[in-house]
């Protein structure tokens, strides 16, 4: 009972890395593999982590069952891809990455339980995982208590900065402000209707959006703000309210199954997003979600985030190719999936910079880590454990992809505790 769980490794044995893709990627992701004998285990692992002479074990902690499995599947796939690519290049400090995958089952106590299992029983060197804010909040005390190290991929509400977490997605201000400014300056939008699912991320994001609209955007106003329970499927009443208020911008942060219902009903109600007004601006719909919504139902909407599958740089073309080779041609890649893909690479870079797997040393080495090979382009880890990244606006096309219509000139600084937005 005590050690009933030998690491199971679905994926690795089943799916051999396709040599071509791996080699191509290997050439992209410098530096070349290091040799294990140059880094004796006793020296690189002083805290009893699961590191042997030729392997290092990490954890993957996402929901593969329950309501969140819909969203988290992509993250798991991206993380496995990154791990395989790193292994194909010779691993980290000459050690192959092995992983133990645990199922959070969309249930926050289970997340906490599994996180503790990974850290205490399995002694994993780092964990790629979590998706919702609630799951992160549940595991956070566990990571801080047992000094684990978590790479968290989702764009989220901010207001957090843990020494034990690297946030590879954008925090709220990074994602929101650039998009609002853009829609105001290029589309002349003045009135906004804020709408969201009822939990902390949409509420906090809309709070920041409202402050920005009211305090920093001249002549702009919020004409409505509303929240619906998660899983709500009837939006005809709110659509009528939107019609009544005639906002320039519908700012929607609806998530999960509600998303599908919302956009289908919006379209059926005759609100045509391909026309000039109203503009629909969302921060919650990635390419992943569009698969469920149907491209024809969301065509013309704008999304503001840091990554779109359609980005045309070499890193991204390689990444998309490798992802499809590993998981199938019909896969789509959304913002969070890409952010999840960064996790193992950022960890690799930090470990190699530190020359050690010890969490304390990896943490110390993390700020300032740069990744020139990220699919989204260049990213850099900030002192506050978030990433510098560009923010982009994409317009949804009928085929389910976004056409990038705007990107910030510079990297946007992460600011999880934004002054003036509290």
């Amino acid at each position, binding site marked *: 009972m005590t050690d009933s769980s030998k690491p199971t490794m679905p994926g690795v044995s089943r799916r051999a890395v396709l040599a071509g893709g791996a080699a191509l990627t290997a050439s992209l992701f410098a530096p070349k593999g290091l040799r294990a004998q140059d880094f004796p285990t006793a020296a690189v692992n002083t805290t009893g982590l699961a590191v042997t002479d030729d392997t290092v074990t990490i954890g993957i902690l996402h929901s593969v069952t329950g309501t969140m499995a*819909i969203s988290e599947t992509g993250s798991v796939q991206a993380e496995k891809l990154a791990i395989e690519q790193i292994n194909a290049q010779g691993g980290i400090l000459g050690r192959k990455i092995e992983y133990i995958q645990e199922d959070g089952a969309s249930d926050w106590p289970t997340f906490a339980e599994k996180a503790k299992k990974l850290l205490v029983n399995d002694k994993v060197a780092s964990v790629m995982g979590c998706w919702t804010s609630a799951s992160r909040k549940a595991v956070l005390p566990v990571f801080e208590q047992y000094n684990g190290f978590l790479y968290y991929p989702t764009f989220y509400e901010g207001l957090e900065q843990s020494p034990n977490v690297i946030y590879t997605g954008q925090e709220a201000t990074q994602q929101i402000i650039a998009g609002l400014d853009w829609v105001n300056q290029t589309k002349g939008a003045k009135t906004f209707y804020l709408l969201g699912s009822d939990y902390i991320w949409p509420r906090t994001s809309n709070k920041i959006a409202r402050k920005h609209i009211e305090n920093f955007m001249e002549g702009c106003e919020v004409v409505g703000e509303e929240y619906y329970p998660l899983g709500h499927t*009837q939006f*005809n009443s709110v659509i009528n309210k939107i*019609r*009544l208020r005639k906002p320039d911008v519908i700012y929607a942060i609806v998530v999960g*199954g509600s998303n599908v*219902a919302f956009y289908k009903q919006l379209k*059926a109600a005759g609100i045509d997003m391909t026309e000039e007004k109203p503009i629909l601006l969302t921060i919650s719909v990635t390419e992943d979600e569009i698969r*469920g919504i149907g491209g024809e139902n969301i065509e013309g909407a704008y999304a503001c985030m840091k990554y779109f599958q359609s980005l045309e740089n070499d890193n991204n073309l390689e990444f998309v190719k490798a992802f499809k080779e590993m998981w199938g041609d019909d896969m789509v890649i959304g913002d969070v999936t890409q952010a999840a893909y960064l996790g193992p690479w950022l960890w690799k870079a930090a470990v190699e910079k530190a020359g050690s797997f010890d969490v304390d040393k990896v943490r110390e080495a993390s700020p300032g880590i740069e990744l020139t090979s990220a699919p989204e382009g260049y990213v850099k880890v900030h002192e506050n454990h978030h990433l510098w990244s560009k923010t982009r606006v994409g317009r949804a096309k009928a085929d389910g992809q976004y056409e990038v219509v705007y990107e910030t000139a510079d990297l946007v600084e992460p600011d999880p505790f934004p002054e003036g937005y509290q």
Partner: protein
Amino acid sequence: MFAGYSMGELTAIFAMQGFAGLILFSVFVLMALGLAIIFGQMGVINMAHGEFMILGAYVTYLVSHVFADIMPALFSMYFFVAMALAFVAAGALGMFVEWAMICHLYKRPLDTLLATWGLSLILQQLYRSIFGAREVGVTIPDWMMGSLPLTDMIEVPINGIFVMVLAVGISIAIYVLMFRSGWGRQVRAINQNRVMADAVGINTAWTDRMTFGIGCGVAGVAGSAFTMIGSTGPTAGQQYIVDTFLVVVFGGAGSLLGTIASAFSISQAQSIMEFFLSGSMAKVLTLLVVVGILMLRPQGLFALKLRK
């Protein structure tokens, strides 16, 4: 809230809001009819009701792909085929489940709740294994996704009208089945007195199987129709279960008319409150009112005059 709007605009909004309420009403009717048959007539608590609906949705998804690949010319019509197949598939699964599970549990109605909850877990996992954890996008024929402009300002979603017509059609069909057919007479007889029904020669086992099958089949059709307005994923069915049970119980189990009346009152209440309040609070208030009324009138709006 209404300052600064012209009379015409307000009329238009209220008209459209009225339609929104009617659409919600139709959705509730579709969700609840299948359950009303199973729960009301057989006393079985089918917690897998939502999963039967999702089965219908997945059938629709598959049919849409078959049409798109094999006979794209007829794509605009595939939905009717899909609904028929959804009925057959969900009904067949329902009959199988009745044969394998439910028929052993008629004496223990609360146990059907546990067994069907287990069934719902299994179905969810099967959907996940077969179709993947992600939601699937069901492409709806273009003619169903637009809106119909009645006047300059009043627009009505076509899929809403479609759902309304479907709800009315199925209600009438079930009414005819229950009250104008031999089968319906048998079902009602069994509901009133199973032993006597058996004694006078009604094949109760077969009638039960048919009843359960038809109830599940109606759920399948509802699921098929909901691909137009909602999501299709392994766990999407769970979203419907509370609302559905409340509608049936509020109407008074055993009374189809009651189910329709309760769907109407709950949907209107929710729709009106959603318009004047924020979404979450509207939902809480609606549920509270329903539960409050149920506490005062536990037998529901329309109860059969039957002593237990």
